[in-house]
C-alpha cells in the first residue's frame, strides 16, 4: 500500500488536500498585539507553555518589574477553533478565536478588538524563569 501510495504520488497526481488539526501545544512568545487603541508605551513580554495535558504556564511582564507566573488549564475546541481556559485560582479566560499558520499562533479576542500573535520557540529563556517575583 505504501508503494502504491508512493507510486501514485509519483504519477503526477496531487494528493487530496488535508486540513491540519489546530494544535497549540508548545511554547509561544507574544510577538505582536494589535488593538484599536494604543496601550501607550507599555512594554509587554509574554511567554506561554501550552502542555499536552491541557495545563498551561504563563509568564508575563507588563511594564516595569519582573515576570509574573500564572498556571492553569486550557481547552481547545478544534472544530470551533476556540481557545479558552481558567487560571489556577478558578478565574476563566477566553474564548479566543485561534488560528495557526506554521510557527505563528493568532488569538483574537471575542470582542474582536484585540488580536495577539505568538511565535513558537523552543524554550522559555532562563532570563524569564529566573526573574520572577
Amino acid at each position, binding site marked *: 500500500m505504501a508503494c502504491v501510495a508512493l507510486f501514485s504520488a509519483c504519477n503526477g497526481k496531487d494528493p487530496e488536500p488535508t486540513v491540519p488539526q489546530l494544535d497549540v501545544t508548545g511554547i509561544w512568545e507574544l510577538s505582536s498585539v494589535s488593538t484599536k487603541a494604543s496601550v*501607550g508605551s*507599555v512594554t509587554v513580554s509574554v511567554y506561554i507553555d501550552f502542555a499536552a495535558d491541557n495545563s498551561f504556564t504563563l509568564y508575563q511582564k*507588563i511594564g*516595569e518589574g519582573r515576570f509574573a507566573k500564572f498556571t492553569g488549564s486550557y481547552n481547545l475546541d478544534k472544530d470551533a477553533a476556540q481557545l479558552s481556559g481558567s487560571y489556577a485560582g478558578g478565574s476563566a479566560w477566553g474564548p479566543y478565536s485561534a488560528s495557526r499558520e506554521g510557527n505563528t499562533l493568532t488569538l483574537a479576542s471575542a*470582542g474582536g478588538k484585540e488580536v495577539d500573535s505568538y511565535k513558537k520557540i523552543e524554550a522559555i529563556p532562563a532570563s524569564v524563569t529566573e526573574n520572577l517575583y
Partner: protein
Amino acid sequence: MKSFKLFLVAITSMAFFSCVQKEGMELVDENMAPIVRLGEDVLSDVVMVKFVSAPDESRLQELETEYGVTLEKVFKSTPGREELERRFGLDRWYEASFSEADDVDTKALKLSRDRFIEMVEYESIYRNDAQDGVYAAAPVTRAGNGVFNDPYLGNQWHYKNTGNATISKSVKAGADVNVSDVWATLTCGDPDIIVAVVDEGVKYTHPDLADNMWTNPGEIPGNGIDDDANGFIDDVYGFNFVTASRNKSSDPWGNGAISWDKTHVEGKQVKGDSGHGTHCAGTIAAVNNNGKGVCGIAGGSGKKDGCRIMSCQIFSDDRGGSSSITSRAIKYAADMGASVISCSFGISRAYSSDNAYIKNQGTVEIDAIHYFEACSNNPVLDGNIAIFAAGNETHDFAHYPGAFYDIISVSAFGPDFLPTFYTNYGPGCNISAPGGEAYHVTNRWDSMVLSTLPSELPQLGLEGAYNKTGLDYGFMNGTSMACPHVSGVVALGLSYAKKLGKKFSRDEFKRMILASVNDIDQYIGSKLEKTYAYSQSPLKMAPYYHKMGTGAIDAWRLMMHIEGLPTLTSGIGRQQWIDLTSAFGTASVSLTYLSIEVPAETVASMGLQKITPTNTDKYPAVMDQNGYAFVQFGRLYVHPTAVGSGKISISAVGGGDHVGGDNNPPGGMVLTQSVSLIARDADGGNGTGGWL
C-alpha cells in the same frame, strides 16, 4: 526634662525609665520668645537659644555683655552646606553659658525678652536607664538558611523565620524581614551606603563589625589633630558627642573617643552602657559570610561589600541624650556621609500634635533631623532617611521625634507575627519590624533579637552579676531592635537602587518603604488575645488592629518596588476590581485610603464609565471625585469600555487611619502610589492580571 531614651525592653519591669517630664511654660508676656522648659534635671549653667536671624559678631558681643552670658554656636558650619543650614535654622542656634552663680531661670527669662531671640530651650543631660534585658548568652547554633556561613544565622529568625518551635511555641513561619532571597540574588549591601547609629557607642573593634565600620578617610587616628578640619579631632569611626569638649568655640571638639563599656554600680546593680549601640549596629550590618557569629541585613557577602556603620555616640554610661548632643550627632552624620540614621530613642510621652511637641520640647533636634533628610549622601536619593523606634511603653501612640508626621517610626512584632507586649502602636507608627520578645520559650531569650554585643560588658541589670560575660553576641528586644531592621532594609534598598542606577526622590523612597509590607492585621484580627508560654500575661489583640503602621517590612518587596511596579491590567465592558498588592503590599486590604484621582486622559483613553460602590455604610469606599473609579476592600474598581491605558493616583495613610502634621493629632504620612493600568479586550482574568 528632655531626655532621649533608648528603646530597649526591660524584662522584669515595664517602668524602667525614671525620667519625669514637665510641660512647657505658659507664655505670660507677649513680648517674650517661647521658653521651652525641658524639665527639672537641667544644666544649671546653659540654655540654648534660637535667634530670629543669624547674629553677626557685634550682635553676639552686645548680647554677651548685656546678659552676662557666653554664646557659642551649637553647630559648626560645613562648607557647601551653608544654604541648607540656613534653610533649617541651624545657623541660628547658640548655646548660652552662664556662670555657676547665675540663676538659670532668670537668665533664660531675660534672654527670652530679647527681640533678636526666637526661642529659648533649656539644655539638659540625662541618664540613660536602658540597661535591663540584655542577654549575652551563647546562642545554640541552629541550622542556617544556606545563604551565608555565619554559625548563628539559624538563630536569627528575624531574617528568615522557618517556623522553628524551639524559638517560639507560637512561632509563625515568615514573621521576618524576608531578606534571604535578596541576599542570594540581588544585593548584600554597598560600602558607599553609610548608616549612622545614633546611640551608645558602637564597638568598632568587634570581630563581626570591624570590616563594616565606616572610617573617616581624612582623619589620622590618635594624633590629636583635626586633620580634615571638620571640627572634630580623631573622629575615625564616628564621634563620642557625650564626652566631647573644647576650650573655646573656635576650637575643634576633642575627647570624643567612642566608648561602649562605661558602667558604674548603683546599689547592687550595674548601670550604664548596655551594648545597645553595638547590638543595633550588628542588625544593620554585622559582617556576613565570615564564618563568625551573626549576620547583618546589609552586611555584605564576606567580600568587604557591606554597608558601613558610623557610630554617632549620644549615650555613655549614665550621661548623654540631651538635645544639643543628639542634634550635633545627627548633623555630623549628615555632613560626614551617612544616608540613613538609625535612632532607637525618643521621648516617652504623648503630644497632641507635631506643633505641641515643638512648643513643649523644642525644635533643635527636629531642625537637625530635617537638615539630615535634606542632605543627599548617595547617588540614589535627593536626600537621606531617618528611622526612629516607636517606643516600648505599650502606649497607643508613637514617641517623638519619630512620631513626627514625615519621619518613619517603627513598631515591633515577635516571631509569631503579632505585636509584642511592649511595643507602642497607633498614631505616629508607620511600619513594623521584628523587635523580638521574651516569654515565648522557657529560656526567655531565643525569641528575642540576636546580634553583636561588646564582650567587655557586665551582665547588666542582674543583681549581683557583675562579672564580665566575655561574649560577643547576645539577645535584646525592643522597638530599639525593630528600628535597625528597617534601617538595614533601607540601606539594602539604597544599595540595590545604586546597583541598578535608579534614582528616586527621598519622599518617593519613603513611600516605597511604607508600601513594601506584608499584612500583619490578618494575624492580629484572627486572635482575641496572644498568650505566652512563660510568665507574661495574655495580651489582648483588638487594640492593635490596624495600628501597627502599614504592616511588616519586607525587604524583597522593597527591592521589587525599586525595580519598578508592574502595569495592572483590566478587561473592558464590565465593572471589575484590580488587586493593589503590587502597589501597596499585602497590607493593601487594610490600609486607610484617602483619595483616588483619575486624570481626564485616562478616562478618555479607557472609556471609563461612572460607577458607584455599594454597602459603603459597612465597607467604606474612596471615590474619584468624578465617579470614574473607587477603592473598596483594598481593591481598585473601574469600568473600562475601550482598549486603552492610563495612570490612576491612589493615596492612603502611611500608618494608622489619619494623617498627622502641624496641629493635627499625630498620624501617618500620605502614601501616594501612581498605578499604570491598561484595559484590554482580551483580558478575562477577573482580577488575576493574567494576560490571557
